[in-house]
């Protein structure tokens, strides 16, 4: 590629975090006016690399060239000045500010705000028109849906005069249709001469929109190819370093009786917002029920109500033919005692105490079980033995019960949580985001465990924002949107398009038959 056609070039960039070599000798060249994909597994070093380009971190070695000229980018300001803008995976917005205030933060144009705001308002309206990014500039960001917040981020970058736009996992929070809309915007940007760098771990997106793609694996750049010359399978192999099965292998399910029956379940949160709206679900033994949906549509609340963390505001939960909704035992502690396991969505926030050892995490939630107590004393020996057994069975590495949970990798942390929740022999298991932030090896292992558990006749509810995961793992899929179940279908009948539409809130033909059946079964 000719230098004068290259918008962004990296040469032999190296970055360490303490002993961790996060980026090894990375070289990359991105053509002007193209959409360039960077793909890799979780933890491959993609985000780190782009944070270096954005000046958020500094590389220990290597140089960055923008438009063929070497640039010293040692802070975000320098990067902005070089014409680079970034849309982060977690939005860098102030919820209590308006769109306008967020956009001008850092480029206020003078000590008094009023002048800057007036100028920015005009400029924003122009940008909105030019790139069809309509948004109410006076709305508070905290009140906007995620899709629009992302737009604010893009506008922020454009307002700062970005010629190169980096997007880090931009579709993680979007429905497939919203993602398509985003891709149209990115195409417009490319047509206007902007350069787009798209970081993702989703093959679909790379194939759908990019011109070129670079593949990262374990901190290294392993390939640069033109998108039209490659395939999903080939990219997957490059990402992982071996052939991977993109499909989970499993037998046909043989559903048994309904273990948990949920009727008209509603939940109002502490802020007074109605998060769950009359949910009806049946979770059956020997079956995996998958919940698909864009994050933030009530899945977390559903898990936390079913897990006994929050009390439902209305409706009923019938567990093994007994209505437990109003019983005193409907709380996280007692539900565990009567056979419910719960792998939470976020192992750092809920599933583990990171500063506790693996051993102490083994009993979280089960700490008052007679297995672990002798009178008033916690039985250290029995806790240790249990932990060692879990580590052995789930192949946790390093096999050290005394290591703090924070010292394990994401995949091994997830295995610790899964071991605890599966090995207490539950009849029903709730699993949130089973493989978030987990490497592919562990993903395969975890999926296999879940299938084995299903085949052993347990009821499993899986919530995941990864549409592919829900499709490959589930026997039945329910889609949530805005606190409602918009539809339920057999996994065999599910296509990405059908699910995608439902995830955007589009109901298929009213499933009245299904509902009637359920009502009939109740009485």
């Amino acid at each position, binding site marked *: 590629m000719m230098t004068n056609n290259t918008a962004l070039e990296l040469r032999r960039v190296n970055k360490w*975090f303490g002993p961790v070599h*996060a980026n090894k000798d990375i070289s990359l060249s991105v053509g002007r006016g193209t959409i360039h994909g960077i793909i890799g597994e979780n933890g491959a070093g993609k985000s*780190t690399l782009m944070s270096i380009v*954005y*000046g*958020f*971190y500094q590389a220990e070695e290597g140089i960055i060239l923008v438009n063929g000229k070497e640039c010293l980018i040692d*802070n*975000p*300001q*320098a*990067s*902005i000045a070089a014409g680079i803008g*970034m849309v*982060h995976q*977690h939005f*860098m*917005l*102030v*919820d*209590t*500010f308006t769109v306008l*205030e*967020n956009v*001008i*933060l*850092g*480029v*206020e144009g*003078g*000590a*008094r*705000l*009023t002048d*800057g705001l007036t100028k920015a308002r005009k400029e924003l309206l122009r940008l909105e028109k030019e790139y069809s990014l309509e948004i109410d500039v006076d709305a508070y960001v905290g009140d906007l849906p995620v899709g629009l917040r992302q737009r604010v981020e893009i506008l922020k970058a454009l307002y700062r005069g970005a010629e190169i736009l980096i997007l880090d996992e931009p579709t993680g929070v979007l429905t497939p249709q919203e993602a398509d809309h985003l891709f149209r915007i990115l195409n417009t940007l490319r047509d206007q001469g902007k350069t787009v760098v798209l970081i993702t771990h989703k093959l679909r997106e790379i194939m759908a929109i990019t011109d070129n793609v670079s593949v990262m694996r374990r901190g290294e750049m392993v390939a640069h190819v033109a998108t039209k010359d490659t395939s999903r399978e080939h990219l997957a192999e490059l990402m992982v370093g071996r052939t991977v099965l993109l499909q989970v292998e499993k037998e046909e399910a043989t559903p048994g009786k309904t273990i948990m029956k949920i009727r008209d379940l509603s939940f109002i949160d502490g802020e007074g917002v109605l998060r769950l709206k009359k949910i009806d679900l049946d979770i059956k033994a020997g079956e995996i029920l998958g919940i698909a949906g864009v994050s933030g549509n009530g899945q977390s609340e559903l898990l936390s109500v079913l897990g006994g963390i929050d009390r439902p505001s209305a409706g009923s939960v019938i567990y093994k033919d007994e209505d437990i909704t109003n019983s005193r035992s409907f709380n996280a502690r007692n539900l565990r005692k009567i056979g419910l396991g719960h792998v939470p969505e976020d192992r750092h926030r809920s599933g583990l105490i990171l500063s506790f050892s693996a051993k102490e995490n083994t009993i979280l939630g089960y700490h008052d079980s007679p297995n672990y107590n002798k009178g008033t004393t916690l039985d250290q020996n029995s806790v240790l033995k249990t932990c060692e057994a879990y580590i052995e069975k789930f192949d946790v590495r390093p096999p050290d019960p005394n290591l703090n949970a924070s010292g394990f990798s994401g995949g091994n942390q997830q295995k610790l949580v899964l071991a605890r929740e599966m090995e207490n022999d539950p009849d029903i298991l709730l699993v949130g985001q089973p493989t978030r932030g987990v490497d592919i090896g562990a993903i395969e292992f975890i999926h296999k465990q879940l299938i084995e558990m299903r085949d052993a006749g347990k009821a499993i509810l899986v919530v995941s924002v990864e549409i592919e995961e829900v499709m490959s793992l589930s026997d039945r899929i329910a889609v949530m949107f805005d606190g409602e179940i918009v539809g339920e279908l057999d996994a065999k009948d599910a296509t990405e398009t059908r699910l995608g539409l439902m995830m955007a809130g589009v109901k298929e033909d009213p499933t009245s038959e299904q509902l009637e059946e359920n009502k009939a079964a109740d009485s």
Partner: protein
Amino acid sequence: MDSIQLFILLLDATFRVATPLILAAMAGMFSERSGVVDIGLEGKMLGAAFAAAAAASVSGSAWVGLGAGILTSLALSSLHAYACVTHKGNQVVSGMAINIMVAGLTPTLAIAWFHKGGQTPALSGDSRFQPITLPFADALRDTPIIGFTYAELISGHNILVYIAVISVPIVAYVMYRTRFGLRVRAVGENPHAVDTAGISVDLMRYKALAVTGLLCGIAGTYISSAHGAGFIRDMTAGKGYLALAALIFGKWKPVPTLFACLLFAFTDALQARLQGVDLPIVGVIPVQFIQALPYILTVLLLAGFVGKAHPPKAIGIPYIKER
């Protein structure tokens, strides 16, 4: 008429008591809005009170005292920033350490320098901020209500009281209408957003804490060299904590915080009036209970009426760049 006059005098006393509370609360607003908890308001005020009184008594000028008070408070504020921002230390511990250190250091230095059992020499004349009589105050004093109000309530305070009064609109303006205020608020809500916008989070917090130091310095100076006439050990007597409570009760907003300060000050002024007074039904309330009134009020307010306060989201959490 008598009771109206009494009420005006009560309000007058309220203003005097409220001055350091208002200044300290406005000071705390910058710190806390930028995401740094500051229970060290107390220590900063105490340090400033001592430095101001000491410098004023040596130099004979209240203004030199003010300068020394502000410098001391700024130094303590920088120490807080150094511990909490640069070294990501625990903010409550740092504030507490500063309070304890100053509580010991001020009498130690006072004894070493002035040999008066931990006090500074009494201030008078130019070494103390004197009341300012506004134009026509004396002439109007006899005009019923309005004139009396003007003469007693509006006129006759020292310059620092007026500074406290105008500090509220100024703080409100700076917070909501300037670039600095925007960035302070942003850094307390989402420091990551500020960092990625190319603004240094640490530097912003240092700047915010500098403003905290400045305002606390004025508050402390007022206590020893305007309201009082010299430094006495522990003379801030929990005002820093009350200011912090007012800030929480005022939901970190200038005008509600002002009213919270006035409420506390009013209780305090009232307690001075109530001492030894035989009230109907309850009789004479023991002086200790009256003195504890502002503290009890604080607890009740925090427990009952604050409702769900929304503190700055990043408050108390040191900013560490995540990997």
